[in-house]
Every structure is written in C-alpha cells, then in structure tokens.
C-alpha cells in the first residue's frame, strides 16, 4: 500500500523553482530517504507533504488525504521531527509532551500512559521531570522523536535527524529509528545530506537543484557507478592513461591522488594490471562505491554547501548555542 504519493509536485519562490515536478511513492512501512545537498529542495518537499507550504503545482496524498485540500487530516496522520529544534527548553520533557498531547486531542485518560510509552521507547522516562535545557543534543533529538510518535502517526518525518550530532549519537538515533519501524510498522520519511546514513534507508531518492535524479535501493544506486573505484599513481600518468584506454577501454579521470577509473571485479583486475605494467605503478588502491560516488556520477559534483541566507545565519547561531549546552 502506498502511504505517500507525490505527483508532479512543484514549488516556486518568486522566480526560483525550488522543487521541479517531483513524483514518487512511498510504501507503507518503508524507510524512505531524501538525499541531496543543502538547498536541493529536500526540506521544501517535506514542508509541502506536511502542509506547511502550499505546492505551486502538482498534488500529493498522505495516508490517502490530499495535502492541499485536507491539511488537518494530514497533520493528524504525521509526526514531525524538524531540522531545527522545536522543543521549549524552559519546560520539562514531560511538559513538552503534555502540550503536544493536548494539541493533538489525545484523550485525558490516555495521556499519562502514552507519555510513559514513548519516553521509555527513547530511554528518557527517568528524565521526564527535568528541564530540557539540561539535555544533550542527542537527548533533545530523542525527545523530539518521542513527541512525534505520541499521537500514533502513520508517517514519521525526520528532517536531517542527526544534523549536528556526534557520530556515536548519530548511530544511536538510527537504532531508535529502526526499532520504531520494527515495533510500530510506521512509514519513515527522512532527509539527510550524510551519504553514509542514507545506507540505512530501504529506498533513496536523490534530489539536486529541485529535481529527482535517481530513486532506488542503496545497493542498486551504487551499481550505477559501474564497478569498483581504482586510483593509481605511476611515473607517467599520461602514458598510463593512454595504455588504460587501449587495453581496458576505460577513460580515467585525473585527480590529485592519481588516475581514477571504475572497473568491474576490481580485486581480480589489480593483480593482472600491476603484472602487465612491469613496475610502472607506484601505488594503487581500490574502493567500493559509496553513495557519494553515485551523487558525483549523477550530478558531476560533490555534495556542496550553499551560501547562507538570513535564516541559515540564525540557524548557525542557534547551533552554536546548542553546542554550549551541557552534556550528560
């Protein structure tokens, strides 16, 4: 069953087309990832699916509801964890959840039980009466995830769920995400610009300049790269390049590390190649393709940083503030 359907979804801000006729469908129970650099249109797409922005064109359905025509029904069906924190840090963890329960009309009789349930899920039950200000970045993120689950949504949206967190905490957050899917069978839609994290998704859509450039499982996407990545250094790269083209039909790219090319069965290729080169090779390395390589292959660019808007400046300040908060 399809939980999210987007059809020719489009968003324009003035002259800028932030999202260009994007279409996709997410199956129920899937972990679906939106991957792309900052400013690619990931957050704009999420905002349209969450009814926070009205699409300029196209339509989208969430749990069967039209995001433009039935925003309230859509809002009840989704849980949201934003890229930027949205907790009140002067309130306790419990108070933040309590207010959420009221806003989503969870009956008084059920509130306490649900609060306990979601807080235990993210291991924060013992801290329920503590002021959020005293929490670490990872704990705040877990609390936001718990809050997003409180009203039993059909889809949980996570916009850059691990942004600004250290690697260990990031790994932890992912454990929770997998647990939630396993236990609640929820559909999870997330955005990230961390390529390594996207590997956790069942399917990935790669978005760049507002357009979908590919959509598949991480394994299939990596197959697009066309084999293993070999980097080789020799005494004369020019001559080696010519020989590679003639003997193996590959066109290597010049990089600061040497010549780079893609080839099937790299492990078997290396010994043959080195033997044939009779000692011309100074160094050779092999790397399995990553999603970074997929992105580079599809767009011709590495994931890049965009220039900062006014909002980004505020976001940076906010992040610096967050880093100063105590860790527990």
């Amino acid at each position: 069953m399809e939980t999210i359907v987007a059809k020719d979804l489009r968003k324009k801000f003035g002259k800028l087309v932030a999202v260009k006729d994007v279409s996709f469908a997410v199956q129920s129970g899937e972990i679906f990832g939106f991957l792309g650099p900052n400013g690619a249109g990931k957050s704009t797409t999420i905002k349209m699916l969450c009814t926070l922005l009205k699409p300029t064109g196209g339509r989208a359905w969430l749990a069967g509801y039209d995001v433009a025509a039935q925003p309230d029904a859509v809002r009840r069906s989704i849980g949201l964890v934003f890229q930027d924190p949205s907790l009140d840090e002067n309130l306790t963890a419990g108070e933040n959840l309590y207010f959420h329960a009221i806003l989503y009309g969870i009956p008084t009789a059920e509130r306490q039980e649900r609060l306990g349930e979601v807080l235990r899920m993210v291991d924060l039950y013992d801290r329920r009466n503590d002021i959020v200000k005293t929490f670490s970045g990872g704990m705040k993120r877990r609390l936001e995830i718990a809050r997003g689950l409180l009203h039993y949504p059909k889809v949980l949206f996570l916009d850059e769920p691990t942004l600004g967190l250290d690697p260990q905490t990031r790994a932890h957050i992912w454990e929770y995400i997998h647990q939630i899917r396993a236990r609640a069978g929820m559909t999870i839609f997330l955005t990230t610009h961390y390529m390594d994290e996207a590997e956790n998704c069942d399917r990935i859509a790669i978005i760049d300049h507002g357009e979908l450039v590919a959509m598949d499982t991480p394994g299939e996407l990596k197959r697009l790269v066309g084999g293993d990545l070999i980097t080789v250094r020799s005494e004369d790269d020019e001559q080696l390049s010519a020989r590679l083209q003639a003997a193996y039909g590959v066109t290597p790219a010049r990089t600061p590390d040497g010549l780079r090319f893609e080839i099937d069965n790299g492990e078997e290729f290396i010994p043959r190649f080195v033997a044939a080169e009779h000692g011309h090779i100074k160094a050779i390395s092999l790397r399995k393709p990553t999603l970074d390589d997929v992105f580079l292959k599809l767009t011709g660019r590495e994931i890049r940083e965009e220039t900062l808007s006014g909002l980004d400046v505020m976001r940076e300040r906010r992040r610096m503030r967050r880093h100063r908060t105590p860790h527990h």
Partner: protein
Amino acid sequence: MTGKKDFSAIYVIWLREIIRFWRDKARIITSLIQPAVWLFIVGRGLGSTFRGPVPGVDYMKFMFPGVIGMTVLFTSISSAVSIVWDREFGFLKEVLVAPVSRTAIVLGKALSGSTVAVLQGAMILLLAPLIGVALTPRSVLAALGLMFLLSFALSSTGILVAARMESMQGFQLIMNFVVMPMYFLSGAIFPLSSLPPWMKALARVDPLAYGVDGLKNVIIGVHEFSLVTDVAVILAMAAVMITGAVLLFNSEG
C-alpha cells in the same frame, strides 16, 4: 475555528508562556529594574529640577502611570517578537504543524503576551505607596483592566509585525523607529498639553498616548481625553490589529 480543539490550542500557548514567565525569576526581576530606574532615578532627578508639570502632582507621581504604560509596551512587544525566533527554532514551530487553526495560535499568543504584561504592570503598581499614590480597589481594578486592553492591542500589533519578519535584525529597527517615539509621545514623561502643534498631532495618532492617558486618569486622576475615548481608541486598535494578525498568519505559505 472548530471549537474545542482550538480552545485547547489557545490554552496550551497561554499556559506555556505563563509557566515560562513564572519559572524565569531572573527575567521578572530584571524587567522590573528598567521601570524602577525611570521612576526613582529619572523621575526623582527631573522632579528636583522643575516643578511637576501638573499643579499639585509631583513629577514622580506624574510619571508613575507612564512607567506602567512603558512596562506594558515593552513586555507586549518583546513577547510578540519572540515569535520570529520561536517559529523557526522553538515550540511555536511544533504548534504550527499541529491540527489546530492559525486563528487559535494568534489568539493564544496575544492573550499570553497580555497576561504577562499585566503581571509585570501589576508589580509596578505595587510600588504605588512608595510614590505616595493612593490606590483604591476600584482604581486598581480599572488600571488592571486598562493594562490588559492596552497590552492586548500592543501584542496584536507586535504579532502583526512579527508575522512577516524573517530575522531578528528588523526588530532593532522597529524598536528605534516605532516603539521609542511611541513611548516618548505618549505623555508618559511630559504632558501633551504644552507641546508644539506638530508633536501634539503625532501624539494624537499614538495609540499608547490613549493607554497612558487612561492609566493616568484612573491612578492619579489627571487626563487629557475622557476615559471613554481612551477605551474606545484602544479597543478599535486591538480589533484592527488582531484581525490583521489573524489574516496574515492564515495566508502564510
């Protein structure tokens, strides 16, 4: 508006601000320092240089309602402006995606801003005996009512401005070019009657002037306009501003 759920949203936004206000004792204390400085330092200093602007009322007494007006003004505006930050990096963002109406959110924000402003203003009112202002239960109630009306109007104005503001930088601009002149022309520091015509004209369109005039009327019994005029102007302003804020919030995105 769809009834019960929107009422809950108003309640949540209101309760949150009250809890925050109550918990942040340091903020309560510091926000009382500025009015105290005006009253006891500026008020006493100016009062010793020239006689009170109104015969029979010494200068500190004259300033007292104006300082309450100032507290209400600054508290309301800063509460409303917190929206700019809160909408991107705070709890308000969470409220904006909940299945509740924008109208309820704006009303909750305006009501919570005015509640906090009235609480702050009431604390200044407690200083009345120190200034030698005699209060009656009736004048206290009238003052609290006026403070609430005034802060609701000012909070709504602040929300209207904050609705489209994208960064905090704009706030400083508004403080300098709107809020400060509004305060100085309100009659809080000097009486409006002896002003040159151009300043008088500006004061006539300063909504705060009617608020301060009303407060002077009920606290020290001095006034330029009738209480009915004061209340009518503030009410009209509140109605226009809250309607504008609701419309602007509903048209977002």
